[in-house]
């Protein structure tokens, strides 16, 4: 289950809005509440930024988070919620929306029992305005949990372009489409040209191929022996690479594409990213 955060909150809310039902419009509607009747703060969210926040690639700016703790802002949100948001809600869907929020909160292990109890009590009350305002204030305050993101990136293929090392799995999805998460499923088959993510113990060996220093990565997935060749130059730290090579094997999380599967169950793959995920 995903983290109950600003992105999830807005997505679920937008599904119940008469107008402003696009995620971007719902985002603007809610963030305008922060500056409702106050001129203390001024925020400008370009479409790209909104898209990144909604896709979990970027967190909301710290200054917005700080503003949400200002008593004037809290007051503005609570005052404007019944006037701005509630009239736009499709009434028959309100209970379902609250139910969905409740399920998400229940399933989010990062929320403390005490906070869970407080939020669920609100959800079970009949005060939709207060509940939405409190939930909005809550999600404004929690940073994106870096779930399924690289805590440490060790290798990045030159085929993969990125501006920084944040949210690489999401950036990968944007560039190459979704991958199949083998850590979460039980696919036994690997199909050519499909992208996968896996966490696996890998054997490593340095080799010299046609004038280039490479590191070969081998791992076993069910009956398949997967091999990939990575350029040493694309490993982010040469010292770390040396230490991994000395150890000879290490558990990595990798995103790879299958290049071919031979009859003898040898599978050649192209690795885009190698690292360790946040736990």
């Amino acid at each position, binding site marked *: 289950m995903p983290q109950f955060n600003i992105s999830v909150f807005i997505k679920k809310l937008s599904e119940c809005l008469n107008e402003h039902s696009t995620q971007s419009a719902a985002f603007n509607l809610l963030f305008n509440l922060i500056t409702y009747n106050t001129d203390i703060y001024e925020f400008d969210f370009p479409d790209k930024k909104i898209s990144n926040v909604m896709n979990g690639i970027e967190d909301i700016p710290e200054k917005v988070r700080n503003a949400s703790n200002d008593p004037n802002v809290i007051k503005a949100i609570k005052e404007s919620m019944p006037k701005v948001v509630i009239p736009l809600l499709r009434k028959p869907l309100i209970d379902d929306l609250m139910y969905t929020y409740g399920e998400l909160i229940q399933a989010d292990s990062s929320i403390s029992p005490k906070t869970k109890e407080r939020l669920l009590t609100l959800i079970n009350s009949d005060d939709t305005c207060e509940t939405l305002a409190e939930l909005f204030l809550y999600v404004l305050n929690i940073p994106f949990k870096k779930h399924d993101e690289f805590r440490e990136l060790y290798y990045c293929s030159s085929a993969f372009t990125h501006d920084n090392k944040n949210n690489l799995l999401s950036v990968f999805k944007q560039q190459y489409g979704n991958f199949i998460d083998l850590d979460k499923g039980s696919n036994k088959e690997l199909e050519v040209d499909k992208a996968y993510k896996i966490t696996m113990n890998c054997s490593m*060996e*340095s*080799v*010299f*191929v*046609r*004038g280039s*220093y490479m590191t070969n990565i081998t791992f076993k997935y069910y009956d398949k022996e997967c091999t990939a060749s990575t350029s*040493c130059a694309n490993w982010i730290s*040469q*010292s770390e690479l*040396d*230490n991994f*090579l*000395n150890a*000879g094997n290490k558990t990595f999380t990798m995103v790879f594409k299958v290049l071919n599967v031979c009859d003898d169950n040898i599978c050649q793959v192209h690795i885009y990213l190698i690292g360790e995920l946040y736990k």
Partner: protein
Amino acid sequence: MNMYAIGEFAAETMLNGKIQPDFKMDNLGINGSRIVFVDSPEVFSCCIPDELDNEVLRKITESIFSLLRSLHSYKDISSFRVGFTSRGGLLADIIWNNLANKGFSSLSYKGIYNDKLLYDTSNMPSTITLKECISEWKLIPFDIINIGNIPSLQAYLSSKVRTTRTQLSAYYLDFLYYIRSFIVLKQHCPEQIPILILNMGLLSHQFGKTYSTFGLLSKCAEISRPNHDINKVCAEKLHILKQTENIVPKLENIILNNIDQDLFEYLWLLNDLDTFEKQLLL
């Protein structure tokens, strides 16, 4: 830093059981006149030869490979190799040849032969011969093996440090003496180089290294003055060698095409031709 000296340093640390996974130029420094690791928290220690096994052999090979990645020329790698193999003896020879299993050889580096060469080390680490040879090698007082302490080949060959060695250790020790002599003579007495190379060729012949023998004798003939005694001896030895040994034209051509190389570069090539002759001819 002098790549030959780094090669000797790598061999010495290896024989002392110190394996640096992150072995690269940036991690080397000078303390007085000695090369040292400046960043060594990850150095792995083991007892050589007692704990030598396939895994230790793999770790040493990876360590050497990590240094090679930080070198950028054939000349530097060749100089490192000569320092490493001459000071490291049989174990260094095995480690260097094991690099071929990773695709690294003079032939692949120069693009002469790109297919992978195989060097079988599967049973080597546990052989008594290897362990005894390493133990014996480690006892040699290496500091005295140089032309300053032992100024003539005659004196060296009859020295106690040489005569008390087994045949295998003596071969590697002779090689070390020749190489160290070469470094000094090249600077101070270059006219002695041909006879030194002739002796290296004869040493190779004793150990059945046909292509090294052929290459070194050919080089000696090439650099010695025509009609000089050494030139005549070389020509005669080459003539006999070609009559008694099967020198394949394909490999002979590789040697002759590279005869102008610096000696250290040339030695790497000759070693690979001898070591992988059969695979090269497949």
